[in-house]
């Protein structure tokens, strides 16, 4: 009962981002089931067909249904990025809080290591990871998690540093509480707001990175698809103003900007 209390207190604050997050997650899970066609099926002889009753978003460069491919693409983008973000932020947050609590050698080693990782451009490290290990779902998720963990680590460490100096941490330490309890019960509930904003930001970065990688052709490989590779493969359609290229680009924009706005509004209200 006591664990749910902090969550219940935060609930009005979380409403807007929660609704938007749920919408995208629902779309990610349900997408493949509500898609009208199969993703690889060539359904029309016309390529880059415009919007019609039969194909709501037209067809792509091979005559496949764009709506279907968009739903599949959204699904893989959201799920892949969500997995990477959860990994990155969980690891980052706990390492950050540990560093703030322990200080000294632990803090210095961790922080310098993270600084090292953060100094490499994210697209570059993504390309290196794919070039070394090949392009597969686990490699992409782990690479993105590693790329975004240092950012999350630094945010959480700074937040935790100011909390660790509060007297209630001192009181808990004087009682002889273990580090695990301090991290989970005393520090974490006091930084949920900023940490959630940070999680949202990392997710948006991950979407951007995955789209970039896919746009360069080293992200998800066919027959799998995601929003970035959809944009790239239909790039020719730009000349015809085909929805095949505009729709996935718009979807990326909606996903990132929408989530960003929701989280930003929440951050300001705090």
């Amino acid at each position, binding site marked *: 009962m006591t664990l749910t*209390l*902090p969550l219940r207190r935060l609930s009005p604050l979380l409403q807007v981002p929660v609704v938007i997050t749920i919408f995208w997650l629902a779309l990610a899970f349900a997408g493949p089931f509500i898609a009208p066609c199969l993703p690889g099926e060539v359904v029309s002889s016309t390529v880059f067909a415009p919007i019609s009753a039969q194909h709501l978003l037209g067809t792509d460069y091979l005559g496949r249904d764009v709506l279907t491919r968009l739903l599949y693409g959204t699904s893989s983008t959201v799920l892949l990025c969500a997995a990477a973000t959860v990994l990155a932020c969980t690891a980052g947050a706990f390492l950050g809080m540990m560093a703030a609590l322990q200080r000294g050698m632990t803090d210095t080693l961790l922080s310098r290591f993270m600084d090292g990782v953060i100094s490499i451009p994210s697209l570059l490290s993504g390309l290196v990871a794919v070039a070394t290990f090949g392009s597969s779902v686990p490699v992409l998720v782990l690479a993105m998690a590693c790329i975004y963990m240092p950012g999350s680590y630094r945010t959480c460490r700074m937040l935790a540093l100011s909390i660790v100096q*509060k007297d*209630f941490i001192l009181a808990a*330490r*004087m*009682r*002889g509480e273990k580090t695990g309890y301090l991290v989970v019960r005393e520090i974490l509930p006091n930084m949920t707001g900023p940490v959630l904003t940070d999680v949202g930001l990392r997710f948006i970065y991950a979407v951007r990175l995955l789209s970039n990688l896919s746009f360069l052709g080293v992200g998800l490989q066919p027959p799998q698809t995601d929003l970035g590779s959809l944009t790239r493969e239909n790039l020719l359609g730009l000349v015809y103003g085909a929805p095949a290229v505009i729709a996935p680009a718009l979807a990326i924009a909606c996903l990132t900007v929408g989530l960003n706005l929701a989280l930003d509004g929440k951050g300001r209200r705090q």
Partner: protein
Amino acid sequence: MTQQPLLSPPPLICVRDLCLTGRRGTGPETPIVSNVSFDVAEGEMLALIGESGSGKTSIALALTGYARSGCRIAQGQLRVAGHDVRTMNASELRSFRGKTIAYIAQNAGAAFNPALPLMEQVIEPALAHHILPRKEAIEHAIALFEMMALPTPQTIGARYPHECSGGQLQRIMAAMALITEPEVVIFDEPTTALDVTTQIEVLEAFRVAMRQCGFTGVYVTHDLAIVAQMADRAVVLKNGKVQEEGTTRQILSKPAQAYTQQLVAASQPHLRNHDTPALSTPLLDIKNLVVGYGPTMADGRPTHTIVDNVSLPVCAGETLGIIGESGCGKSTLIRAMAGIQPWADGSMVFEGQPLPARIEERTPQQRQHMQLVAQNADLVLNPAMSVEATLRRVLTFYNEDASDAAIKRVLDMVRLPAALAGRYPPQLSGGQKQRVNLARALAARPRLVLCDEITAALDTVVAAAILDLMMELKRELGLSWLFVTHDLHALRSVCDHVAVLYAGHCVEFSTAAALNVPPHHPYTRKLENSVPEMQPGWLDGVIQHNGLRQNKTEHAPATGCSYMPRCPVAVAECAQTPPPTWQAPSGARIACHLQAQDLS
């Protein structure tokens, strides 16, 4: 102001039916101050008295035409020195604020820009309002520094804020307020954040300034003793409403309203502790403790020694009070006892067992039996945990009964209703938070409770209730308390034994009763003489007695007595050898070169 003679001059400040409202976020508007009316005649000092949240600062700010963000002046009439404050536009207000009315804030340390030398900031109002050319402004500022009895008035302006003490900054801020020769000066709790010994210097400076500059003043405070010294008349506020208005003498001697009576009663020093102390076996015995910061030097002492060679016993079932000004090492001492500041030398024995310096090395039992109650209840309670969760964690941690009934019992101990259990710290008042803070310590069933200035941040009435509670708990549970404070009244009223700390040395250790019997260490005497008394005119007496104040800037001698630079009765050997400790007839242990007959 019921019977006004026909020919008396009109009041300089005239407030009629003032209403201030405020809103939080997008919530509904709630009244902060309602229907407040008062007058201040020219050259008069009016005190606004009330506890925190009574709206006294909001009224003072309204006089300058300013409302804090989210607040607004809803209705009423505000006339200050012939200006109608509510009808002025932004540029008129700006010149009004600089030339006609000046404001001295509570925390001068935070009010100055740390990146500019003080002189630039002091003369800024005069330059901004084109009152004086730069050269004359600087001369005027130096004259004001002299009046404020600041050390080296010629050169202090070149310093930066961090190079001055809190009391000096407060006086420099007063100089800044007076440089434009305003007609009205508002003092917003200017001495609340200061020590008694510093407070009196600042009050003296204000008093001299008032006499020489002849401004009209509004003094916002919660301290009745200061009202007695500074104000001619007083307005008592509670929850934004005027409770009582009258001359200072009248309010202090014959308060008419129940709230004022309560306030006056809480400010009167009275003895809460009626036990007669007898030194029994010490529960905690501190021997030759040295605590400091920084790397250890060749002689085994830390680079910055904060607590030097202090020996104190805390006896079972007794209250030991430690008093001293800020920087004297009292907080460091209590942190060393609590095991969060390892000591460099000396030892502690707790319940017959040697106490390790670090909290991690202490036994669970030692940790449980000694509990720390820290000063700031806002920082001590986890804002994300309810009162119940906080207490339950302590109970379960020490394997005590953690049922709802047990939590109710703990809340009962600190006289809090069980209905508060579900609340979170931000939903509690300052006094309630401090009680929960106490409850958290008591839930561990301690033998010794270390209290670090627990009443410093509280209003008079609330602080008095906390002290009463401490004494009740001492009787009921047989607890020992260690009470650190800079408030001599509080110390006297609750303690059995008293230790006076100066610059990390224990200069006097005696029973609380012996505090009333001379001889005393010169510093103890200074502390006593610095506590403002409730009778008007006391400050003038002190000013007369002190005569011309001299500002000594010498540093304490490397060997010898650390109090020497401030000591009025210092002799030659004070600079050479550390003072010996001897016992006075009253039982007090005093560390001074002078003998009992010289100090009486």
